[in-house]
């Protein structure tokens, strides 16, 4: 009895481990086989419930994933048959799903990986609203619960659940296909997927509002997604995005003081940077750059790599960083990139050169409400000794920021200004 219980607990641990490692793969394949998100989620649940029941008695199957897929599929068809007594339209569906068993019974590795890509591209389909793409990806691809996603985005769980339900309804009713885009559509569609991953990472790295500077879990999920994409689709920009995330992540420990205060790049203790992540990120940047098909993510990663490789803030190769921003501006001519370039120019040529550029950007009105534009202006004015202007700019930045650590940082800088 005691031995049985011990063996049962062991199997239970195996089931948990298989769930953590493989449940998203099983789900992705079940969605393809069953053609429906909800039906597949239910089948996944039933398959793991069956595993808890059968594996202690019959032993863990040689290929647990294949077992779960076929069990889930069988349970779904069985369930449809039972429900068909009340809904005749399910008879035909159950028959059709059953008939398709021969060519999809034992999923080979390749088709399983295809299924994971299908799932990602479907969750990030441009016909779904951007909010829903993010929520659905975290829910279906990463397996986060609705509550976890809601907490991470400071949204009500009910709102978030509604968003996911609506997205699934649109996938079903408008028939968004469960497929990886054709080669012709791939660049655009991959951009959309990378954008979702990037937004998730940013939300985790520099939470747009709230008391805590970073929400580590979201960054971790984004990096996991980035690794998955790079593994499944060896496109340079997928590599570039993963590199960008790893290089930013490498500085996490140095970004906040023990008291939770924001520490700027130039003031960070570089011995806290993760060498492993920097090595991995820099190698990916090199590979992406050598493909000559790189884009904005790779360029941003290259800039992050230049920072990462500088032994001290003073040793930073600002000329190279400005050069990379010039290329980035051609690829992605946005005012935020111009602002970042201006900050790099200030480091290369002195604060006045940077200030002239920032004032030109602000004069166009593009970033008038962007707190970082005003805090960058404030910093350059401070360094030029133009205290009154610095004060006005810090105050404007304070009005615009919604993030608590940034607010404290700006207040500190404001209070440090000479009278």
């Amino acid at each position, binding site marked *: 009895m005691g031995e049985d219980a011990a063996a049962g607990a062991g199997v239970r641990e195996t089931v*948990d481990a298989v*769930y*953590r490692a493989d*449940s998203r793969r099983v789900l992705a394949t079940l*969605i*393809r086989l069953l*053609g*429906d998100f*909800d*039906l597949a989620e*239910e089948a*996944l*649940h*039933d398959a*793991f*419930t069956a595993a*808890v029941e059968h594996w202690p008695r019959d032993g863990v199957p040689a290929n647990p994933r294949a077992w779960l897929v076929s069990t889930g599929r069988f*349970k779904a068809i069985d*369930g*449809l048959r039972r*429900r068909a007594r*009340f*809904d005749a*339209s*399910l008879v*035909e*569906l159950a028959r*059709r799903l059953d008939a*398709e068993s021969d*060519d*999809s019974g034992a999923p*080979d590795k*390749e*088709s399983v990986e*295809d299924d994971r*890509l*299908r799932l990602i591209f479907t969750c990030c*389909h441009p*016909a779904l609203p951007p909010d829903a793409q993010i929520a659905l990806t975290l*829910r279906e691809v990463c397996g986060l*619960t*609705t*509550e976890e996603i809601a907490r991470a985005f400071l949204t009500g769980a009910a709102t978030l*659940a509604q968003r*996911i*339900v609506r997205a699934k309804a649109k996938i*079903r*009713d*408008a*028939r*968004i*296909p*469960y*497929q*990886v*885009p*054709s*080669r012709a*559509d*791939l660049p655009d569609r991959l951009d959309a997927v990378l954008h979702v991953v990037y937004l998730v990472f940013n939300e985790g790295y520099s939470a747009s509002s709230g008391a805590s500077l970073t929400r580590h879990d979201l960054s971790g999920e984004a990096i996991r997604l980035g690794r998955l994409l790079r593994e499944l689709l060896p496109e340079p920009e997928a590599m570039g995005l993963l590199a960008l995330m790893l290089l930013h992540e490498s500085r996490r420990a140095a970004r906040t003081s023990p008291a939770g205060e924001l520490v700027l790049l130039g003031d960070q203790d570089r011995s806290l940077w993760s060498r492993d992540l920097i090595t991995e990120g820099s190698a990916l940047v090199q590979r992406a750059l050598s493909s000559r098909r790189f884009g904005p993510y790779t360029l941003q990663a290259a800039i992050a790599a230049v920072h990462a490789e500088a032994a001290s803030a003073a040793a930073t190769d600002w000329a190279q960083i400005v050069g990379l921003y010039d290329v980035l501006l051609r690829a992605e001519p946005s005012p935020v990139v111009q602002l970042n370039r201006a900050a790099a120019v200030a480091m290369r040529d002195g604060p006045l050169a940077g200030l002239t550029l920032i004032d030109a950007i602000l004069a166009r009105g593009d970033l008038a409400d962007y707190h970082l534009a005003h805090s960058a202006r404030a910093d350059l004015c401070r360094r030029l000794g133009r205290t009154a202007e610095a004060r006005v700019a810090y105050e404007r930045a304070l009005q615009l920021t919604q993030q608590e650590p940034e607010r404290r940082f700006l207040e500190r800088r404001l209070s440090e200004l000479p009278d």
Partner: protein
Amino acid sequence: MIVSHDRGDRATAQGDPWRIGVAILPGAFGRCRFPIAPNDYLASTGRSTTMREGAMKYLCLIYDEEKKLGAMSKSESDAFMGEYYAFSEGIRKSGHYVAGEALQPIHTATTVRVRNGKMSATDGPFAETKEQLGGFYLINARDLNDAIQVASKIPSARLGSIEVRPIMVFDKP
């Protein structure tokens, strides 16, 4: 098996990570399922590429700026009509075409309502929007991606916009 009318996407935390509360709307299974993709980028497994279900119908609503169309020269407008002619021919040949018409301009529109048994017919709608409904195509498509491909080739997609709406299918009573 958890079956309920509530489609909420709640997780029921009972200690087991896989206990995800799934709620299913009975009767929703029968329609609109994923077809198997015939042109997958990585489709390498030689699985059947037949569609699980037949084509779906989508209505492509064409929104144009009447002002822009009105400002076209004769030769521009002839060229535009020529593009429409070629497009219609193309989707007839590809099997997408079901129906399609152009509408007379918005000033010819009449809005009809019946309230409390009383009919009213008024001029309009006086749309304040920049774009007006100018025509439609009803198409057969494999899925939304296929429908989006067709819609993107409608000449007005470059000047105005196309709203793609799946046609509702009712179960037989």
